[in-house]
């Protein structure tokens, strides 16, 4: 870390205490998210120049809406990863949330009461995750791998593995929320920005946020200083699941139908977005901005390959390359800092 204040031996203690080593700018440049954001901007500019289709309003609209779903789920995932865990069940919870919403609306219930049911079902999965991880100390990877299976199975049982495409009296409202737009901005994008700001503020400005960072860095320290770690962990997983459930509702509205393979292997894309955005899988660091930028970059890569006429079989290779590249650049930077 470069010290922005010259070290003078005569430094008066009071003024020394009053200073700060990390300035705002050095902190910003030290963020992986900043570099990934620049990479995304460069990619977008290059594509706008290379193709006449990328910068078209319709394509921008599609790209932003497509990454919004992954981005929203990544908000919850970021919080989980900062806390030192992982949530593999999000893809299945997206499906479960969408399915409960669809079944309730299909049965003639209104949008809002159905949404309450869908979010409750999602929250239950999150509670189960959190309780098993916090109280029985089962690794989050194992617990959420279990609920990944359970939640999708529950969606299949509830729907009898049927596709649901009739949503009762409030169908128009659901379709508008998921598939509509306001002032040319797709509703899922508005949801992403709103929820992103909310999550960001919660992480930065509440004791809850401080504690999430604390348990990710040193869980024992948090316990010893009196942070109520089990309740905190449960809240983290409930948050992640409810965000996933909400995404399910929006996706149901966008797709106009819900099948039991909705959100299949979405957790991997979400984790990729979060990691590209600078979240450390060991816990203790990560940003909301990074997660959103990571999700955007993945979608831009996907979209650009299509526009450039490259076979979609290459998508996985490019996304995988960027996951490793983003983390490798960050590691190299950290190593250089250690040597200084």
């Amino acid at each position, binding site marked *: *870390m470069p010290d922005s204040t010259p070290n003078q031996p005569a*430094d008066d*203690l*009071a003024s*020394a*205490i*009053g*200073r*700060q*080593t*990390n300035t705002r700018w050095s902190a910003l440049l030290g963020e992986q998210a900043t570099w990934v954001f620049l990479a995304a901007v460069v990619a977008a500019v290059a594509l706008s120049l290379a193709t006449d289709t990328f910068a078209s309003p319709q394509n921008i609209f599609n790209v932003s809406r497509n990454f919004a779903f992954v981005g929203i789920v990544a908000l919850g995932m970021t919080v989980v990863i900062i806390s030192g865990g992982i949530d593999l069940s999000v893809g299945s919870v997206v499906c479960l949330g969408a399915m409960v919403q669809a079944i309730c609306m299909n049965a003639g219930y209104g949008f809002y009461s159905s949404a309450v049911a869908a979010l409750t079902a999602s929250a239950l999965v999150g509670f189960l995750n959190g309780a098993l991880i916090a109280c029985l100390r089962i690794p989050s990877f194992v617990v959420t791998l279990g609920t990944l299976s359970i939640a999708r199975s529950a969606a299949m049982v509830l729907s009898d593995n049927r596709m649901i495409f009739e949503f009762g009296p409030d169908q128009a409202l659901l379709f508008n929320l998921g598939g509509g737009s306001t002032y040319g901005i797709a509703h899922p994008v508005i949801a992403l920005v709103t929820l992103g700001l909310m999550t960001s503020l919660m992480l930065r*400005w*509440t*004791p809850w*946020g*401080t*504690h999430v*960072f*604390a348990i*990710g*860095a*040193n869980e*024992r*320290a*948090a316990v*010893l*200083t*009196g*942070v109520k770690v089990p309740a905190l962990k449960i809240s983290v997983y409930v948050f992640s699941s409810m965000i996933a459930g909400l995404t399910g509702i929006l996706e149901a509205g966008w797709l106009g139908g819900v099948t039991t393979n909705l959100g299949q292997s979405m957790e991997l894309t979400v984790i990729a977005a979060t990691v590209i955005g600078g979240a450390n899988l060991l816990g*203790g*660091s990560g940003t909301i901005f990074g997660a959103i930028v990571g999700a955007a970059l993945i979608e831009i890569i996907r979209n650009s390959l299509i526009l450039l006429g490259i076979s979609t079989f290459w998508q996985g290779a490019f996304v995988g390359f960027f996951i490793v590249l983003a983390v490798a650049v960050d590691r190299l930077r950290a190593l250089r800092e250690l040597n200084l």
Partner: protein
Amino acid sequence: MTVLRLEGIAKRFGAIEALKGVSLAVSRGEVIGLMGDNGAGKSTLVKIIAGNFRPTSGQIFLKEQEVVFHGPLDARRHGIEIVYQDLALCDNLTAAANVFLGRELTRRIGPFRINDYPAMNRRAGDLFRELKSETRPKDLVRSMSGGQRQAVAIARTRLSNADIVLMDEPTAAISVRQVAEVLNLIRLLRDQGVAVILISHRMPDVFGVADRVAVLRRGNVVADKPVAKTSPEEVTGLITGAIEHA
């Protein structure tokens, strides 16, 4: 004035008798060195004072009032603070955030409670000044020296104006220069009337800063005397068992 008195504290873990009736008293502004070999019962005793364990039998008195601790938060409410061996700091948080971890200052904005960073930074800065440590509240703990980390951990104990501070091996893993810094911090605490219980393996530290030394062996207090009336040789003998009792 006696701030902490233990009477016949015993602790069993199944068949193992970790403490066999320990009695100990600590006064205001006194530094007591608690010594003993691995497995002598030091950490069990510390955990009982800190409220992590309930004793199997025996009583704890704070200012001559009997107390029973239901967990570490309860002990903290009664004015007992612990500085852990690894300091229990979060590297990714600022010094001020670490000082206030678990008891953040907040202010209300409408229905929300948000962190009051200016107040926390100001208060943490005051504490560092009191401890004469050049530690900046807004700096991340990750980039701090061993001495500054100690100051952060000790500032935490000053936040609540604790009567009793337990320090678990504070000098075990730091450089010589930093040891001197930590011993100075302990003297500062003592001068402010805090009773310090210093758990240590290091003879020079205990003899350098403590007023009294208590030696634990196999769950018993085998010596409890002023530092001036003993010597490192005697204490070593007491720890190993070469000297039965003193």
